[in-house]
């Protein structure tokens, strides 16, 4: 045997993995493709059987309707304000809460940590009425602040848990070294821990943003005035009692999907992580 010996890759054969992956990607992306495709079809083309895979003359009519003849632009702005607001608020609170949980020992910490999750366990339907009553008493129904606070409450528990485990993975010696170098606790957090937690912060940000961006039930109940309605409600408004303008729904869906896609693409680099490489040991 003078043939060069190579190690055999263990597991399934490569072609099988490739085929399966391609299939999976197709299944996942099909709805998006259908959404984009349907947004450039005319209403008549939408209903033809068999379906038209590419319209002979793509139309921008649906986008014109959505952008200039509906409330979608206004709802888009509302969605941005509310999602950015609640994400920012949740992130700030989660950073401090998680840092406390990750770095300090205090009485009742396990109890408090599990308490944080209790909010996450309650079914949405069970808390709608109490939340509504609370918001009305506080005079926050139909305001940005009302939805921002409600969404913050929903996203905060999981954000705190995600960040706590992320902070715990950062070697504590780094902060001790910083303390010896003369840093205060806050300087430790902002100059050492946070810069090293960017992937964790990005995950939390994307999670909180996407959750609030897509949320429907609370928005439906707490924002009845068009000045604060969000995009998911706007989509639903295209369906009336008698007919649904599917073309417009699809065009609006594309508009609604874009920010999320951009967010994911811009954060992608951070998810890879590996930022603490070289911190300790050899």
């Amino acid at each position: 045997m003078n043939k060069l010996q190579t190690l055999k890759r263990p597991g399934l054969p490569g072609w099988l993995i490739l085929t399966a992956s391609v299939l999976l990607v197709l299944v996942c992306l099909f709805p998006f493709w259908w959404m984009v495709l349907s947004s450039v079809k005319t209403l008549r083309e939408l209903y033809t059987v068999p379906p038209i895979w590419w319209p002979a003359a793509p139309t921008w009519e649906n986008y014109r309707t959505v952008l200039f003849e509906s409330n979608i632009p206004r709802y888009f702005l509302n969605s941005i304000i509310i999602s950015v607001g609640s994400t920012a608020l949740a992130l700030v609170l989660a950073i401090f809460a998680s840092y406390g949980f990750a770095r300090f020992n205090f009485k009742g910490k396990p109890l408090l940590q599990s308490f944080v999750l209790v909010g996450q366990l309650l079914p949405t339907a069970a808390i709608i009425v109490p939340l509504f009553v609370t918001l009305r008493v506080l005079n926050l129904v139909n305001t940005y602040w009302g939805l921002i606070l409600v969404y913050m409450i929903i996203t905060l528990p999981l954000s705190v848990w995600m960040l706590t485990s992320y902070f715990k993975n950062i070697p504590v010696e780094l902060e001790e070294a910083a303390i010896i170098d003369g840093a205060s606790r806050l300087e430790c957090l902002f100059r050492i821990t946070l810069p090293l937690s960017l992937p964790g912060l990005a995950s939390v940000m994307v999670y909180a943003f996407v959750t609030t961006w897509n949320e429907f039930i609370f928005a439906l109940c707490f924002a009845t005035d068009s000045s604060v309605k969000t995009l998911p409600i706007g989509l639903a408004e295209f369906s009336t009692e008698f007919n649904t303008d599917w073309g417009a729904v699809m065009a609006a869906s594309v508009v609604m999907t874009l920010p999320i896609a951009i967010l994911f693409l811009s954060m992608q680099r951070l998810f890879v992580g590996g930022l603490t490489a070289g911190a300790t040991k050899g």
Partner: protein
Amino acid sequence: MAPVSINNVRKSYGALEVLHGVSIDIADGEFVVLVGPSGCGKSTLLRMLAGLEDISAGEISIGDRVVNGLQPKERDIAMVFQSYALYPHMTVEQNMGFSLKLARAPKEETRDRVAKVAAMLNLGDYLDRYPRQLSGGQRQRVAMGRAMVRNPEVFLFDEPLSNLDAKLRVQMRSEIKQNHHRLKTTTVYVTHDQIEAMTMADKIVVMHGGIVEQMGSPLELYDHPANLFVAGFIGSPAMNVIGGKVSGGGFVGDDGTRIALPFSVTEFEGREMKLGIRPEHLLLDANGHAAEIITIEPTGAETQVLLRLAGHEIVGVFRERILQKPGEILHVSLIPERIQLFDGKSGQRIDFREAA
């Protein structure tokens, strides 16, 4: 530079006390090594000195200030961690200048001081690199540079060499020693490696189970260990220990082997004792004790031989080449003046020089 005084310091976690009253005086500019097996409390003591752990009882002062209540940054100390703890998101220059930046020192001054220290440590070409782009030894140097830039009163080292390979460890050992010669900063160095302790220290503090077993210069500890623990811990191969008792003015091993002693032991007649002898204090002697050879390990310059003598396995190190084979008999004698006796129960050394 400043003297450090540790006065009856205790540390407890809840009901568990891990340091039982430790007192150490460190002179200005002295290089002190805390050495002991893992769990002996040496790192805890260092962290208390640094201000990373509370002091449960007792007093630590640096210079003429009691530092018990002071924050780490107010203590004027710098520390090198076992894992280096370099900030991974900062370059070498930023790592080394971080403490000055926090202290809001002028930028030019920071740059100058970092450059000066980097030159001293041969890091000048690496200032723009990130820690992940450095080798283990370079990271170690950056960690030391970060401490040196601050020009502190006291350097603290927490097992700084244990992540390096054997060759690099020897090299860094001498670099640390050279830097100490140059800077003359009071240094407290923690290690579990007695060779590091022996080679670097002005003063060794041997710790065990939360107490100080003995402190002194390296050779003092080697020649006159206070007890069996220090005798066994300092020196490699370790000191040989033979159990037996004092009888008829000499030492009688467990199996009845008589070993002559150079000093009078009549006052200890009948007492259980342990006899200690360093491996290099065995001599080839045709009139000596017959000992069976178990293994022979030639290292070139010398030969280590594992022997069975007086019912115990003991190690001898000889400058001569040993031509016998395992299983054969080697005749050896013990240099009488080098024999040490330890109390059979307490393990404390019995000092005959004083008794005589």
